[in-house]
């Protein structure tokens, strides 16, 4: 865990430095385009976090092992963190390049709605502690992921303005290596930090649960 966090942070320093100093300036967007080196890794990490929530929720409902619930809960917190970073970095970029902090674009809408769904998840955790809250949250974790494609589809019915994917697309990345390398470095760094934080949080939750059990036992 400590190794992951250390490695991830170090790699992130390299990636950010590379993105700011070495990567070429984009012709039309100028310097704000460099936000992409943080924006894309955080959104990818956010979606990975939500998939971990989904997997943890399904396994918890199936197996009833509190370990899976701790995994889902910890990952949901990180998911909200990374979605927030995505929304913030995207808004700053949007203001600079589009001239607007926000538009009702499909990707933006989907991400914002996911933020609300997982904030709801965390609120249920806060308001309904114990096994009952864990079960309720697990169902929200499953429904949230089921909702992703539908939200996206509905937002396309609205309209779409977001730049089309340049990296994750069937034909392979369209980004030149000079931009792709710092992006990949940052992506790996974000994943490592996510994994490190996730393990850290799961351990905290485990300690907390153990403490609660001990207190209950002695009372």
């Amino acid at each position, binding site marked *: 865990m400590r190794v992951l966090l250390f490695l991830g942070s170090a790699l992130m320093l390299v990636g950010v430095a590379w993105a700011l100093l070495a990567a070429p300036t984009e012709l039309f967007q100028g310097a704000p385009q460099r936000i992409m080196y943080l924006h894309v890794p955080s959104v990818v990490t956010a979606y990975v976090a939500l998939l971990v929530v989904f997997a943890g929720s399904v396994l918890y409902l199936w197996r009833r092992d509190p370990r899976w619930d701790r995994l889902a809960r910890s990952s949901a917190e990180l998911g909200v963190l990374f979605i927030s970073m995505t929304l913030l970095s995207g808004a700053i970029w949007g203001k600079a390049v589009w001239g607007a902090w926000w538009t009702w674009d499909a990707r933006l809408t989907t991400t914002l709605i996911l933020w609300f769904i997982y*904030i709801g998840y965390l609120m*249920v955790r806060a308001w309904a502690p114990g096994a009952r809250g864990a079960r*309720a949250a697990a169902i929200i974790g499953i*429904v949230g992921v089921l*909702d992703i494609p*539908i939200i996206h*589809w*509905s937002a396309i*019915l*609205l309209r779409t303005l977001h730049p089309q994917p340049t990296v994750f697309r069937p034909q392979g990345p369209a980004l030149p290596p000079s931009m792709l390398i710092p992006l990949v470095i940052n992506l790996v760094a974000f994943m490592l930090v996510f994994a490190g934080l996730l393990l850290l949080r799961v351990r905290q939750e485990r300690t907390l649960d153990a403490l609660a059990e001990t207190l209950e036992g002695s009372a």
Partner: protein
Amino acid sequence: MRVVRLLVGKDLRLEWRGREIVSAMGLLALLLAIVLGATRSGPEAAPAAMWVTYAFGATLGFTRTFALERDHLTALLLAPLDRGLIFAAKALTNWLGLVVVQVISLPLFGALFTETIWTRLPALALPMLLGGIGLAAVGTLFGGLIVQARLREALLPILMLPVVLPLVIAAVGATTGILDGLPVWAIGAQLQLLLVFDIIFVTASFLLFEYVVEE
């Protein structure tokens, strides 16, 4: 089917005697229609006003249908029934309540926003029915989920509204198209989304409900 009919019958009878839920939901819907109409009442505002009203009416009413069981929820759960059937019955009750709200608020939308509602009524029924089913499915799932939580009246809208947002977007799109005089095939994409939403969430809720209500 018989079980569902009995359970729905029981809830409807309770509701008919007390008329708590429908009067609360209906009154909220009328108030929302008036508040929204007072602030912006052109025909172009009608679809959004209608769906905001339905969605909020749903969040208010759907917390009550489980609360109405109060201490009897355990009794209901002890009955040797598939939990999916309990979901089906509750969702059906919720949906019927929502239909009542939709119907009684229509004259107000017709009067305050646009008369076109009356000429396009048959086409309008499509998004209203499909959208209502989706709202009832998600609302019943989450309503059951949080029935024992603190602050459940506050929690249901927080959980439900983001999840049903795609449904509301599609329903508003379809309603706009219909009120603009487009033929039904022109809003096929929106209706398709509503249908897919209904299928996914009715199925998912039916399957997940077993985990929602267990002790």
